[in-house]
């Protein structure tokens, strides 16, 4: 018999055997089918997670590569390392050189300067606003307005006095607080207001400098900002999109707030919590009625009613009382009780109340701590430990398209490079000019860059710097704290040019590529360019630059691959076992084949072919089922039921997709596992002696 003919016989036999050993084949087929299903599902999920995480890192702030000072003390960690506070990654003193050099490298699209820091932010307080209005009313001789504002400020003074009395009970600075209460008493006295028309400046000054600093509305919120060349950034991180407001105009200083941060941190807490509850119920499919955590959340929400009522003007409160009374069909006419009743949501009414809140209540309150267009004060520590604050305008909010609610993409706000340098404590043109003036006036010593801040301390109008070191505590006791609060006296600064952005300091820089698939080819070219030009930089890819986050992606991949491996090892053992038993059952058959002159290779081939056919069929079925399932998931999306999953999915839902490589990989894995599992049983089969078969023994 020729080779082809023999092969034909063997395949026919194998094919028939598939049906004559149904029990075994169904089991093995099922396991294979299940296995390939799992591989398709697992690998395509993993690919999708990796894709979305890669995107949320590279498309938001990292670019494809990052460069920073090669002598940096800490590793670059764009999303934070293990400490609260930013890493010390050194600095790039002249960014322009880096830019011009690296942009020349093939496949490099852009080099964007960056620097990350954290700051506290302060807002104008209610009292500040009222004093300002009063100032206006006084200068306009608006008696009605003055009367109204007097009432408001007196109410605030009364509350402040109570606060100070409460504070006196726990603080060890009784005398100081007594003095403060004294100031408030002055404002509460009729005498004070009688004097206002005749001596407005003196009285307003008193309010401004004595009473206003006592008010504390600090929200204990940190703002993480990325200083960058805003226009270059917007151009090359092409999913960047302005949501509200506008881009910071070319040459101006300004702040752009991340929409996620704006919603999650800056927004009124009641609105945010209501939103969260709504999402838990409608996105994650949880039930308030059965979920103790959600019930607690509702309880806490109800107690936050003050965040609404406190903000309502009396007119608004009246309107809302009627509206809520009608909506809730409640006889109550107290706004506080009505709001509490309204906030006690359940599964049935949450959607409706969520909608009512944003339609009717939200417009009546200040929904965000600050609005687009406001000026806020941000305060941070410079590199050498000074405290610096800057008043800056919020031009707008932004998002990265397709990465809404990605925790990584939502973690940074954007600020112009020049303000970043101010806050970082490095020279800008304005300060250099000032320094030059000082130097000329003094005409004596060189002021080295390191101590320049000290020399400038107190000289800069816009930037208030305080040195934290070498002082006792409470160094601000007698400092006029006014500059710490945002106000409209934003000093007009000269517009800056592109050259100023480039010829200055950056901490790190993102390298954005034309073709991201060619990362590995571009890397050596970049390294060469850095070395040849003596830039003194360290080059890291986005994964390394993202610190612990990048490692986490690798970790998840390793865990999943190890799990898949273990599953297949166990499956291998089980399939092997099943096959062996099936072989034992077929002793007579095999013995007969051997007795009729079938060679061992014939038996071996028959067994392997059998398995091959089976696993090809079952594997195909499994991969198709898997592909179908992933397609289905891709349409519906997998809800991220846990915060960690929101992080992994880079959003509230993952929409996985399946690629041909997933299917082929799964199919190949199944074939290999099956063939491996068959070798031993097939080998045993070839050892069967014809005589055993003929004797009918088992």
């Amino acid at each position, binding site marked *: 018999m020729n080779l082809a003919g023999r092969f034909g016989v063997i395949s026919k036999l194998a094919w028939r055997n598939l049906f004559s050993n149904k029990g075994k084949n169904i089991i093995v087929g099922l396991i294979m089918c299940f296995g390939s299903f799992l591989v398709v599902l697992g690998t395509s999920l993993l690919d999708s997670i990796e894709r979305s995480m890669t995107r949320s890192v590279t498309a938001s702030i990292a670019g494809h590569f990052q460069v920073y000072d090669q002598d940096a003390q800490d590793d670059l960690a764009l999303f934070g390392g293990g400490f609260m506070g930013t890493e*010390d990654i050194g600095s790039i003193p002249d960014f322009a050189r880096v830019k011009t050099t690296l942009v020349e490298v093939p496949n490099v699209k852009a080099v964007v300067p960056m620097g990350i820091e954290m700051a506290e932010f302060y807002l104008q307080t209610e009292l500040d606003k009222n004093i300002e209005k009063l100032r206006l009313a006084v200068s306009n001789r608006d008696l009605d307005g003055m009367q109204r504002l007097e009432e408001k400020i007196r109410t605030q003074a009364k509350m402040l006095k109570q606060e100070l009395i409460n504070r006196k009970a726990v603080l060890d600075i009784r005398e100081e607080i007594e003095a403060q209460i004294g100031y408030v008493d002055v404002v509460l006295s009729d005498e004070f207001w009688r004097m206002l028309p005749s001596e407005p400046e003196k009285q307003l000054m008193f309010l401004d400098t004595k009473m206003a600093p006592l008010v504390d509305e600090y929200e204990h919120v940190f703002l993480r900002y990325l200083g960058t060349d805003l226009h270059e950034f917007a151009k090359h991180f092409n999913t960047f999109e302005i949501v509200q407001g506008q881009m910071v105009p070319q040459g101006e200083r300004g702040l752009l707030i991340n929409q996620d941060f704006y919603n999650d941190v800056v927004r009124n807490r009641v609105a945010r919590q209501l939103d969260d509850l709504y999402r838990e119920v409608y996105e994650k499919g949880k039930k308030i009625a059965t979920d103790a955590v959600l019930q607690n959340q509702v309880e806490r929400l109800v107690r936050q009613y003050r965040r609404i009522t406190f903000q309502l003007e009396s007119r608004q409160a009246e309107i809302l009382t009627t509206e809520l009374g009608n909506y809730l069909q409640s006889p109550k006419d107290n706004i506080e009780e009505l709001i509490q009743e309204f906030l006690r949501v359940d599964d049935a009414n949450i959607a409706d109340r969520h909608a009512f809140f944003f339609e009717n209540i939200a417009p009546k309150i200040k929904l965000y701590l600050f609005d687009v267009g406001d000026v806020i004060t941000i305060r941070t520590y410079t590199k050498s430990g000074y405290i610096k604050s800057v008043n800056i305008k919020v031009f707008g909010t932004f998002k990265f398209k397709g990465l809404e609610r990605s925790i990584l993409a939502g973690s940074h706000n954007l600020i112009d490079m020049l303000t970043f340098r101010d806050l970082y404590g490095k020279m800008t043109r304005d300060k250099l000019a000032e320094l030059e003036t000082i130097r000329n006036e003094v005409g004596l010593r060189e002021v080295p860059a390191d101590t320049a801040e000290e020399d400038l301390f107190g000289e800069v109008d816009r930037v208030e710097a305080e040195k934290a070191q070498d002082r006792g505590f409470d160094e601000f006791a007698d400092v006029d704290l006014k500059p710490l609060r945002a106000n409209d006296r934003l000093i007009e600064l000269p517009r800056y040019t592109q050259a100023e952005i480039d010829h200055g300091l950056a901490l790190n820089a993102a390298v954005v590529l034309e073709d991201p698939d060619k990362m590995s080819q571009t890397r050596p070219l970049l390294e060469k360019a850095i070395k040849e030009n003596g830039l003194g930089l360290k080059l890291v890819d986005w994964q390394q630059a993202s610190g*612990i986050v990048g490692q986490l992606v690798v970790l998840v991949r390793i865990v999943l691959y190890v799990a898949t491996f273990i599953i297949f090892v166990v499956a291998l053992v089980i399939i092997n076992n099943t096959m062996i038993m099936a072989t034992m059952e077929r002793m007579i058959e095999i013995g007969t084949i051997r007795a009729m002159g079938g060679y061992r290779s014939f038996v071996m081939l028959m067994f392997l072919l059998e398995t091959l056919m089976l696993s090809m069929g079952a594997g195909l079925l499994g991969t198709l089922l898997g592909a179908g399932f992933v397609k289905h998931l891709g349409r519906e999306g997998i809800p991220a039921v846990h915060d960690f999953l929101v992080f992994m999915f880079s959003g509230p839902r993952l929409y996985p997709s399946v690629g041909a490589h997933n299917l082929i990989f799964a199919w190949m894995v199944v074939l290999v596992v099956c063939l491996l599992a068959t070798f031993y049983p097939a080998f045993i089969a070839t050892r069967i002696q014809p005589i055993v078969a003929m004797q009918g023994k088992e």
Partner: protein
Amino acid sequence: MGSILIIAYRNLLQAKRRTILLATALALVAMLMTLLMSLAGGLRNTMIRNATALVSGHVNIGGFYKSKPSEAWPMITGVDEIRKIAAEHTPDLVHMVDRDRAWAKIVSDQGSFYASPSGIDITEEKRLFDLIQLAEESEYKTGGRKMVLGDLKKLAEPHTAMIFADQAKRLKVQIGDMVTISAPTGSGRVNTIDVTIVAIARDFGFMSNWNIFIPKKDVRILYQIVEDSSSVVMLYLKDPEKAQEVMGRLRGVFEKKGYVLMDHEPNPFFMKFETVSGEDWTGQKLDLTIWSDEVSYVKWVVTALDGLSYLLVGILMVIIAVGIMNSMWISVRERTREVGTIRAIGMGRLKVLGLFLGEALMLGLFATSLGSALGVCVCEIVDTASWRIPYDAVRALLMSQVLHLSISFWQVVKIVVTFTCIVGLSACWPAFKASRMQPVTAIHHAG
């Protein structure tokens, strides 16, 4: 019964190859489960150790003071009285301390970070003394000596601080150096004090990055608060498992004594600022928590690990159950004649059922015991070896520098019993089939 077991045992021996393969697969999975559970157990232990050393007692009596509704200071007054009441009503109390909590930027000439300084009275902190290991100089300074330099007792002096090794590296400081603690205290004010580093301790995973210890007095200076106030009274119990119960009892006691209590919210104090500052009360409210509440933000790691373990082992068990069912199935068919014979000589159906089930259960018990035992051995070896974890991300997730595995005897028993039951269950159907056979047809069966 005995005879059934003997027959089952002999059958297992007879089908050696099959038994070995199935047992190997089962043992592998049991070992895997044991290891995964010991990893979760180790993590839990690390968590409780870190939490109770750094930020929490087994039960905490903390609270907030508000001088106006929109404020939230983590501070309680009348601490002596609170301590007295707590001591009186906690029978298995081992140790009690109170600590001040602060939030500040720690600044040296070379680096800085934000952290929470805990104000402690070192004379009370015997437990901290036992848990903290001081680091050798070489652990935080390149070219440092291999000897411990600091002294915890010096924390008794004012303007001193104990920090951790990673923090020392970050600040580039050593024993005797000065750092500045700079704390925002409201109304835009920042108070600062300079302190001398008197001790540098070994890290407690990433959690120690966020904590430093300074004398109580220094926190009071920073915030200018009165004596007899503190942030939290921490109670350490003989049996930490009873924390929940003790907290429940103490809530009742304090309420009866006229204290106002916050509703129990299982979160650390720093996650409550926002809630508290939105509520309409002023004055003081106590907030009772247990240790796991104060580290609730890392609980997801344990949940994720558990989830992953159950998913993986679940899939494996399905595969194994299919394999067992199949092999029992074949075994039943192979032994049809044997079954017919023993039925014919008078064995009841139940006994036949028992015969096959017994075989499966015996296999399950043996294999899973072996697997778990192996798992426990590996776990002990790894744990004693104190293997240092090479990746930052893994260190951060497991909150420890070294791999720590721990599993209790009862957990192992649980694994063995569960797995054996699953094996038994998957053998049920074939065994039932065997027991339904008619003796006559069985004997006639061609085999």
